[in-house]
């Protein structure tokens, strides 16, 4: 099966970024762990999108679609039980810079069509999820 090495090499970037995140989840403070959990789903979503393109399989984008809805859900579940939803500039900026930097080139490569709409949707969900779960708010952002 033919693959595009350029896209797969790009997928390696978010994948390698997961290594320090694992360290934070395993040994960090409670806030660090939740930020790490949040970052994990964001980076995994980006890696999956790039890998789908690298393998020339648009249907693999469904995996990223599921990550984009269930990732923030997982973060909110942890936030509910740990009673903390930390404000994190790292997550916010990773989402605001990383998602467009990934999704826009993918859209250009895909061309207009249903696949592009789905890509934009996944990108929007990833950004929305990361921004909402990392913005500062009263009392850690969980309760009003």
């Amino acid at each position: 099966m033919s693959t595009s090495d350029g896209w797969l090499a790009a997928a390696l970037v978010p994948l390698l970024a997961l290594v320090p995140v694992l360290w934070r989840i395993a040994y960090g403070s409670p806030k660090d762990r939740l930020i790490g959990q949040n970052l994990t789903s964001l980076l995994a979503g980006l890696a999956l999108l790039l890998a789908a393109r690298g393998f020339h399989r648009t249907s693999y984008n469904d995996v990223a679609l599921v990550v984009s809805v269930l990732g923030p859900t997982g973060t909110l579940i942890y936030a509910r039980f740990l009673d903390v939803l930390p404000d994190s500039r790292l997550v916010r900026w990773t989402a605001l810079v990383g998602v467009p930097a990934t999704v826009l080139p993918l859209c250009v490569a895909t061309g207009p069509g249903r696949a592009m709409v789905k890509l934009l949707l996944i990108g929007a969900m990833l950004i929305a999820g990361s921004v909402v779960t990392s913005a500062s708010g009263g009392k850690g952002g969980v309760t009003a």
Partner: protein
Amino acid sequence: MSARARLWIFLVGAAGFAVLFAAACIDLPAFGTVPHPYGVRAVRAALSHHTSNVIASVNFDLRAFDTLGEETILFSAVLGTVVLLRQARDEHRKDPEPAVVHPRVRRFALLTLACALLVGLYVIAHGQISPGGGFQGGVVAATALHLLYIAADYRALERVRPLTLYEIGEAAGEAAYVITGLAAVLAGSAFLANVLPFGTLAALSSGGTVPVLNAAVGLEVTSGIVVLLARFLDQAVEIEEPGEDDGGPWDSGDSGGNGDEQRERA
């Protein structure tokens, strides 16, 4: 047993496993290159039944009987949980505490609820075309409902979740799978044989019985997971054992299960 003895037992076991595993791996075909005879035949069979997702064809057509077994495993597991986590005679129920959620989180959770439900249904409906199917989509849809618990509190979730309906749904999903199989027998073929028209390849209605069985599994899994989580939520939020500390408000001061952090802070 001392830690030292346990370490030794582990090391001996790990060494034995490593030897056997290495021996088993030597005879495997080379990684990712040689076309496997089963793979070639499965792809041919899937395409002849107009199912573009070969995995769905294997799960719901070629090996539909295996999937019936897997579905029954989930069904009985949920049944077992319902029996185990029922309210005992000496336990009493208290009303769950209302929770205060940040408006931003609430709005986002409700939006995600709609999106996740849609994604779940999409994954179930497209099982025969693209990756996914009844199980994957069913779990996503069931998770979506529980976003209501995140957006508001347990009482809000209980209001939109008539549990009896989901218990019926779970049984109906399991029954629908068996009935689809028996319908094939009535049509003069084998149990769970693919007797419906195959349709056009890669269309939503392709694959004959594959989408029907997918929908049955989707119904069973969605309802099953909802019932399963309901039992866990009841136990953690509502049911109290005699003498159990009635605790602070569920969603404010005391946080569930971070005794570790409290110790760290102390």
